[in-house]
């Protein structure tokens, strides 16, 4: 009995030492090595692919942003955001700001997790369809699927090319620009599938809006 207790203790001791030394290798040396190489060789990417305008960071090309009108009543957290017609609008987002176990209120990435037969999802798809058609002055039947569904991350930086093209006329009008010019910018920012077959064609909304701003200035 006594002997087996000693043996168990010895074995657990070996396990603990193994864990500690492997923690040093996998949890300290390995991430430091990767961070060192990443920071030296791929500095921009390793730090979030941030994008600057006039020397000021205006976001990350990998993070979606919202482009809403200022709130009518800034102190009302319940007020529904209204999209600003001057900007291209991103996909709907289901990301929240739940504050769980934290002092900060941090953007929580994530999806709606609503089921395909959920009535709430069905209703919001219908609402989004009406709102999109109204905002952009297009037929309800024309609204593309990515404008009706929330993304997986809640910060999807892209929209589909069809979605961008449908928004072009409204954006041009709101900015007092020529529609053809805005459509040209959309075309320039449309990326096809990577290497011709990877993923889906897409438009980066932040990059598109930055180009739009340039266009409006000139």
């Amino acid at each position, binding site marked *: 009995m006594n002997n087996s207790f000693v043996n168990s203790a010895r*074995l657990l001791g070996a*396990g603990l030492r193994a864990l500690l030394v492997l923690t040093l290798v996998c949890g300290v040396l390995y991430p430091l090595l990767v961070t060192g190489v990443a920071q030296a060789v791929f500095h921009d990417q390793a730090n979030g692919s941030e994008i600057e305008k006039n020397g000021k960071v205006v976001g990350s090309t990998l993070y979606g942003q919202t482009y809403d009108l200022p709130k009518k009543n800034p102190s009302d957290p319940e007020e529904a955001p209204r999209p600003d017609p001057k900007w291209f609008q991103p996909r709907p987002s289901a990301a929240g700001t739940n504050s769980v176990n934290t002092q900060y209120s941090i953007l929580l990435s994530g999806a709606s997790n609503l089921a*395909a*037969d959920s009535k709430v999802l069905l209703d919001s798809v219908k609402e989004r369809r009406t709102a999109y058609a109204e905002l952009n002055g297009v037929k309800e039947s024309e609204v593309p699927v990515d404008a*009706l569904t929330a993304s*997986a991350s809640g910060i999807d930086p892209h929209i589909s090319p069809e979605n961008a093209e449908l928004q072009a006329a409204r954006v041009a009008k709101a900015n007092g620009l020529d529609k053809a010019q805005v459509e040209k910018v959309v075309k320039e920012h449309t990326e096809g599938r990577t290497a011709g077959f990877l993923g889906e064609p897409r438009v980066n909304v932040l990059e598109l809006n930055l180009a739009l701003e340039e266009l409006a200035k000139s």
Partner: protein
Amino acid sequence: MSPVLAGVLQLLALVAALALAYRPLGDYMAAVYSSDKHLRVERWIYRCIGANPSVGMRWPAYLRGVLAFSAVSVLFLYALQRLQGSLPGSLGFVSIDPDQAFNTAASFVSNTNWQSYYGEQAMGHVVQTAGLAVQNFVSAAVGIAVAVALVRGFALPRALGSARAGGTPIRSGELGNFWADLVRGTVRILIPISIVGAIVLVACGAIQNFAGIHEVGTLTGGTQQINGGAVASQEVIKELGTNGGGYFNANSAHPFENPNAFTNLFEIFLILLIPFALTRTFGRMVGSVKQGYAILATMATIWLAFVGLMMWTEFHGSGPALEAAGGAMEGKETRFGIGASSIFAVSTTLTSTGAVDSFHSSFTGFGGGVTMLGMMLGEIAPGGVGSGLYGMLIMAIIAVFIAGLMVGRTPEYLGKKLGTREIKLAACYILVTPALVLVFTALSMALPTPPDSIYNTAQNAVGGSGAHGFSDVLYAFTSGANNNGSAFAGLNADTQWYNTTIGLAMLLGRFVPMVFVLALAGSLAEQKPVPETAGTLRTEKPLFAGLLVGTIIIITGLTYFPALALGPMAEGLSS
């Protein structure tokens, strides 16, 4: 190009990449576990552990090593989370509550990576990097070690030369040295691939820094929080070790974890890389690569069939809300689309990974059912690192046994007789996970309060069907007990009930089967091989692969059909 064609081309590219890596990696791993040389860094590690890597262990000793290491790991990870509030480098996050800390510790040590916490809102740099990411490495290495021990059981003593561990020839009944297998798997296989993979991910845009969460201005003059963290280094081992626990809540859908369509396919490649290649390692070590091909063919057939089924249902996009939207894009990212998301979803649930680039709860009813069925197969096609191979070999034993019953011969596999003891152990292995899944699901539905966590029900405002609500719970325990870790996140699993029961399901679902696997390995290793005769079942032939696929489907079907009928099938048929 149509999205369907693009999806198929991505699948073909993935298959080609896996085929290219199959032989070199499989042979390399066989060499690693058969080598009698120690690297200098390994010798240093063995000195720290205080273990002699050249001592052969019989199965009880090997098992004690696995259990001791894992027990210490659970305690260490639990303590790390409970102390987070007082540790430096924790970004101001407080300590994790006891029930959630237990759940998370069980989850990462059992290679499950079920997450009842929100990554970016709960865990600081220290816990993520020195706690969770470390378990991503070592839990994977433990899985491979157990699989290799079983393979040695088959190989011994016939292939003494190729199954030496740590310099001394293995004596009858010895399975190798656990510490040597653990350290070699980590140092020679997982870390080198991870370093290369992490740098590829960073080059494509995954972040890798130790910055905190910082606010930046946005284009319209507002502000936005951008996260920092050692993400790429954790992301790569999360896929390679079939772990799946995301740095962020959105997991591999988050652009900082999975920035573009190429990294998406690369991450799927990493998930499948080792589980498929281990069949080559198995073939090498038992002295017949053809035996490995038969296992590979079985795994690949099931995987491809599931991918086809998933693409079909997701491109079809049925379900009232999805039909109203005109496609199954809810919970999917624009840059990946439906095709790539379908391949990811199948690959993550047919291995024990559980990482997601799209959210399974919003898939079509049948699509959700496919992800669940993938896990219910026991994650053996190709399965988790190590666990996929040993799970499939257990199924092969059952298939040989059934074939033996048909012709009235004592079954034998790879030259070893499958007697009463072997079949009993294999049967026990198969019973553990379904028992955990079904009992815990039934309890959660029957007890008064656990159903309150269900998000998609007919009664509450969300308005999903009751069938989907049941699927949420069934998925959670299927995912936990099979060590997958993905979720139908329409369930609030951060309650004491779910944290505790899923935590138990994960630990029992990981380590009880390992007991049976190692006992089986020990009993095989003691046997003298029987010579092959004209009556021996040719287990390297396509016929056997077909029999194996059938056995797997029948066993899973008989076990889970009633539960599946109440959940995803009811939902899929009613919509």
